[in-house]
């Protein structure tokens, strides 16, 4: 079993579900960003998806588009990102981290070298929304990434459009967890209903024991309740960056507001 799956299963044993928020690195500034990470862990996050900004985030809705634009007003450097991960490791040595970002940034840095640095800094999974299963195996082959198989889990998505034969293949090969996309579309929409895709969860369970985390559109405590009816845990992203965006002029307040929001959400 890969390290990430092991870690998540242990986390789930402790409190019954998995809570994995997303936070885009550097929003709204490096210092506040670190405070947000702290807040998320203190509020019970089992892991955090640390997001890499990108100029052309085709899988993201308006909130995260604006988030990345905000972050990219300052030049992005992967080294700063790695330093950020190492600070998180120092402060939360027991927490395993996830990195989410578009593939180009991985390729430009050198994906093998990057995985090594990630692993050293407690990263145990990567989520790359513009790489489907076929390209993933090609990249693993091409860049010699087999050695990370159990160390850094490359997470797969299953979506409402995934056909049955693909679902089986993805589930059978899944590592870490499966990212279940709740609807057809980009991140951040205000509609969340898992009933139409309830069958997919049953299908996935038939073929894999990895946890299923639901993402896209989780914003309210009602959404959370519904997510936990079907899945092992949930991911929340746009709502948290909306809060940051609304308080850019009073950044001190951001961690506290996020803390409050999470209390409501998890209540």
């Amino acid at each position: 079993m890969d390290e990430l799956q092991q870690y998540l299963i242990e986390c789930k044993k402790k409190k019954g579900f998995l809570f994995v928020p997303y936070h885009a690195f550097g929003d709204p500034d490096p210092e506040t960003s670190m405070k947000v990470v702290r807040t998320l862990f203190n509020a019970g996050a089992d892991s955090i998806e640390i997001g890499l900004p990108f100029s052309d985030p085709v899988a993201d809705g308006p909130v995260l588009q604006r988030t990345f634009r905000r972050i990219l007003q300052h030049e992005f450097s992967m080294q700063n990102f790695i330093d950020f991960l190492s600070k998180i490791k120092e402060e939360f040595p027991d927490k395993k981290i996830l990195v989410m970002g578009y593939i180009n940034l991985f390729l430009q840095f050198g994906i093998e070298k990057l995985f090594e640095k990630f692993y050293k800094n407690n990263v145990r999974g990567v989520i790359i929304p513009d790489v489907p299963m076929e390209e993933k195996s090609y990249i693993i082959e091409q860049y010699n990434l087999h050695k990370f198989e159990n160390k850094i889990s490359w997470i797969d998505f299953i979506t409402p459009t995934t056909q049955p034969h693909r679902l089986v293949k993805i589930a059978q090969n899944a590592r870490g967890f499966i990212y279940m996309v709740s609807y057809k579309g980009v991140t951040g929409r205000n509609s969340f209903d898992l009933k139409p895709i309830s069958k997919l969860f049953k299908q996935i369970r038939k073929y894999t024991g990895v946890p299923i985390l639901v993402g896209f559109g989780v914003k309210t405590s009602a959404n959370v309740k519904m997510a936990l009816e079907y899945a092992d845990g949930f991911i929340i992203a746009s709502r948290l960056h909306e809060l940051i965006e609304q308080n850019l002029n009073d950044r001190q307040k951001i961690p506290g507001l996020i803390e409050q929001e999470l209390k409501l959400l998890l209540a």
Partner: protein
Amino acid sequence: MNQSEIREGYFGRYGGRFVSELLIPALEELTTAFKKYSRDSAFKKEYNNLLREFAGRPTLMYHARNISEKWGADVYLKREDLLHTGSHKINNCLGQALLAKKLKKPRVIAETGAGQHGVATATAAALMKLECCVYMGNEDLRRQALNGFRMRLLGAFVVGAGDQMGTLRDAVNEALRDWSSSVDHTHYIVGSVIGPHPFPSLVKWFHAVIGRESKKQIIRMTGKLPDAVFACVGGGSNAMGMFSGFLTESGVDLIGAEAGGTGMKKGEHSSTLKMGKPGVLQGCYTYVLQNKAGIVDNVHSISAGLDYPGVGPEHAHLLETGRAKYVAISDDSALAAFQELSETEGIIPALESSHALAAARNWVFDQKKLGRKKPMIVISLSGRGDKDAAEAQRLMEKQGRVFQ
């Protein structure tokens, strides 16, 4: 990598399918349909009828005598500008709209830069009774305002993309986002040989008619093959269409003209093949203008259709194998060529096509310096310049040119 190892959807190491899992079923469905219909004689007949009766094919191969005399070369223009809607884009749109019908998708979407692809999509949609939505960058809506109105007149819904400075690349992003939620009932008519597989192959297939006709026409008219063919490269669809007719003729130089903008510093141009490096943008692995970390650059061209930080993956492959060459043409050279063809030949070209003209002119003068007498060349005149008239006037008057 040897030829037999090249995977479907790849040109050498370029291409692929870098999109969200959400879109994979639609891309697979489209790939299957493309394989089936590109071999289906009824489909081909229907498509060819549309090209002939609606679009106006075959287009002329015109011996431009005044320019030939002026440059001291034999210059032939492939007149895609004479097609219905004013550019080569209609070849692809009629084909893909027909595919959308076969796939039973009642709605089509498109991105557009200069607006020519948007207009061609809106036109095909009107003809085939499809609902149509076109994404266009806000800066492009300003500088190609005429096309914004044409699309609306044709019944399309036009949506501005990006911020104030939004261009073609923002329009592609928005179209991809639309598609990820509308994929059940919508076909995305990608406007160039870019994006995830099968689009680079499919769009090339629909434009291959440009190269096929050109080869036949030039041989009929002159009894030989040209020394070189020229086309502008934004995403690279008119170039791929033209080049495909001559790829196996090693005596014919293939030359693509990219936008050199106002200079070769970051942000001043969109010469992707000259200044970019391999990466992933909008669904495929190809050359990309980007910074060291992989963040995609903001780019510039006088010509909205070339103002794009990526390029079709097959062009990346042709660059790498050396089969084609790519040059950067500055805004000013393009504008000068725009004016030269208008005055000298009585043909007002699109600013995009003006880049191909300028590249051809430079090449001819270089060849003559090398002692070559009267080279014979074919230039893809991908579109007409009406859409650019207002912007060109503004820029030329800024340069001090007075029109009485």
